[in-house]
């Protein structure tokens, strides 16, 4: 993700030329040095989460759905965060939850971008009845609140991971479409695009080689923000019992399952924190991604405050 905003055409000149031009890595390091502490913090958290998600089976002390322990054990004593109502280790489920929750949110965001960017670019280049058709369809989809629309679609198609990913991706692709179209419309009229088309390049080539690299920076920042929205929507749906289904470990449904423990705060304060752990895990990653997105927006666009 980090190289993408290093939007350059001079890489080919690179090392071979005598005039020392900074390489991709050098420029990346310079940008990173200037990054505000919040962005550094955000990146560290994201890297940790990705690490945990990839190596979940190695890090977790017990299995994802291993319910061979006594129910509702307290913190400590072999189970760092105790066990849940049917005797599954909370700590292990938190670790596996990283993989499920982040993985599904990432795939959904990616799909939303494939749909939204593709249609947005087509609309920007075409600008005829097709553009009108797609734009009006998107207007209608955006006239209904996303969570309500998702709830309705889930009641019709049933809640499975596949339908969850497709529904949320389609709903979120509307915003990606709007952004892509708005940015691309300005690029499409540029002379170099015209030149490429006069050269006889195909539509696909023009889109990939001429338009896409020039609209990349705002899209990268949007990807981070979109990921947050998708993540929070899926967490909310899972919390409502309509998202990722058991026995798969997922933070949203873990909050729902352990929510009752909060009543016992006066007897066992630690146990009452259990439902807050997965919720805090969600909060931490969304805060971190937001911090990074804020920084990306600042270096990539004019959205910074003028001084």
């Amino acid at each position, binding site marked *: 993700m980090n190289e993408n905003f290093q939007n350059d055409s001079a890489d080919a000149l690179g090392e071979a030329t005598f005039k020392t031009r900074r390489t991709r890595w050098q420029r990346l390091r310079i940008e990173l040095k200037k990054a505000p502490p*919040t962005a550094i913090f955000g990146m560290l958290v994201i890297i940790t989460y990705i690490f945990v998600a990839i190596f979940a089976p190695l890090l977790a002390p017990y299995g994802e759905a291993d319910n061979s322990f006594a129910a509702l054990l307290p913190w400590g004593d072999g189970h760092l965060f105790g066990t849940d109502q049917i005797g599954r280790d909370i700590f292990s489920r938190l670790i596996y939850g990283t993989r499920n929750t982040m993985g599904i949110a990432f795939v959904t965001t990616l799909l939303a971008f494939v749909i939204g960017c593709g249609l947005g670019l087509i609309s920007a280049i075409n600008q005829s009845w097709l553009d009108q058709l797609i734009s009006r369809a998107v*207007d*209608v989809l955006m*006239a*209904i*609140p*996303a*969570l*309500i*629309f998702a*709830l*309705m*679609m*889930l*009641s*019709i*198609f049933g809640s499975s991971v596949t339908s969850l990913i497709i529904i949320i991706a389609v709903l979120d692709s509307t915003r990606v479409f709007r952004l892509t179209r708005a940015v691309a419309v300005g690029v499409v009229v540029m002379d170099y695009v015209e030149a490429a088309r006069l050269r006889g390049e195909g539509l696909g080539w023009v889109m990939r080689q001429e338009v896409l690299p020039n609209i990349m920076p705002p899209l990268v920042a949007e990807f981070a923000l979109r990921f*947050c929205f998708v993540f*929070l929507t899926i*967490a*909310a749906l899972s*919390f*409502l*019992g*309509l998202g990722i289904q058991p026995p798969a470990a997922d933070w*949203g449904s873990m*909050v729902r399952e352990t*929510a009752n423990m*909060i*009543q*016992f*705060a*006066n007897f066992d304060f630690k146990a*009452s*924190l259990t*439902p*807050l752990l997965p*919720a*805090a895990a*969600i*909060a931490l990653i*969304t*805060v971190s*991604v*937001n*911090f990074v997105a*804020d920084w990306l927006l600042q270096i990539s666009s004019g959205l910074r*405050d*003028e*001084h």
Partner: protein
Amino acid sequence: MVPILVTILKRVGLGIITLIIVSVVIFTLVQMLPGDFTQAVLGQAATEETVAAFRKELGLDKPAVARYFDWIKSVSTGDFGTSFSGFSDIAAAGADQRRVADMVAPRLANTLFLAGITALVAVPLALTLGITAALKRNTFYDRLASVATLTTIAFPEFFIAYILILFFGTLYPIFPSLANVDPNMPFLTRVYVCALPALTLTLVIVAHMMRMTRATIINLLARPYIEMAKLKGEPPSTIILKHALPNAWAPIATIITLNLAYLVVGVVVVEVVFVYPGIGQLMVDAVSNRDIPVVQACALIFAATYVLLNLTADIIGIITNPRLLHPK
């Protein structure tokens, strides 16, 4: 005043068209239900006759276009049809049927009450914070507010809700952690019972609203006419009241209505956390039971509220736009 009237009428027309299309979308989606749906609702034991009666009740023996107009006609008179929950009990079919409108109406009132008290607290608070942060830009206060709101926005609603329950519901039991309201409660008790859900919603919405207000005001203060007023030597109060504020009404109205629309959605999760008998919880229950008429009614109400709020925002924007008010 005529051009402004034309603009408003155009916008209202567009809003009505949007509403119609939204209703068509909601109706069409339900038509995509899998074919064995009647069996799923009635259970395996359903006889041929009950299935046929159920299909007739749904109007499945008529063409889709006719069904849409039937549905719209009854919805416009406040009749949302019959809930599926009565049908599962085959023996009592007919006697046990529940009208969707009777289920939705009291819950809609509860939700509007919760959203109302939230808005009463959140709107003035957010505007004050946003405007002061914009005026004292790049001070410590501004940065603190910025980090705090960014953090709150990134928190899921249920996280804020459970933190509040932990502190004010169980550790220091000041407020009830379950918001059980009933229609006979006196007003103040009701507000007291709703305190925690309203506080959760307030926190979420103030963060959004404050950030938007701050951005708008900063954008406004950078305009050339503000600089002109400054150079003329006018006092800061005149600049804000006479030059900035008339141009700020439209964006501020948009911010308020946008966030009230956001409140409509945020209410779903918060209602479930606090077991508040509102329309959001009704919809979630209906979705898990696949009680389609109820889902349809709730979705239509949510979508209509959303569309109407956006319409209001645009109209306020048109009315308060000085350029449209004083045509050349």
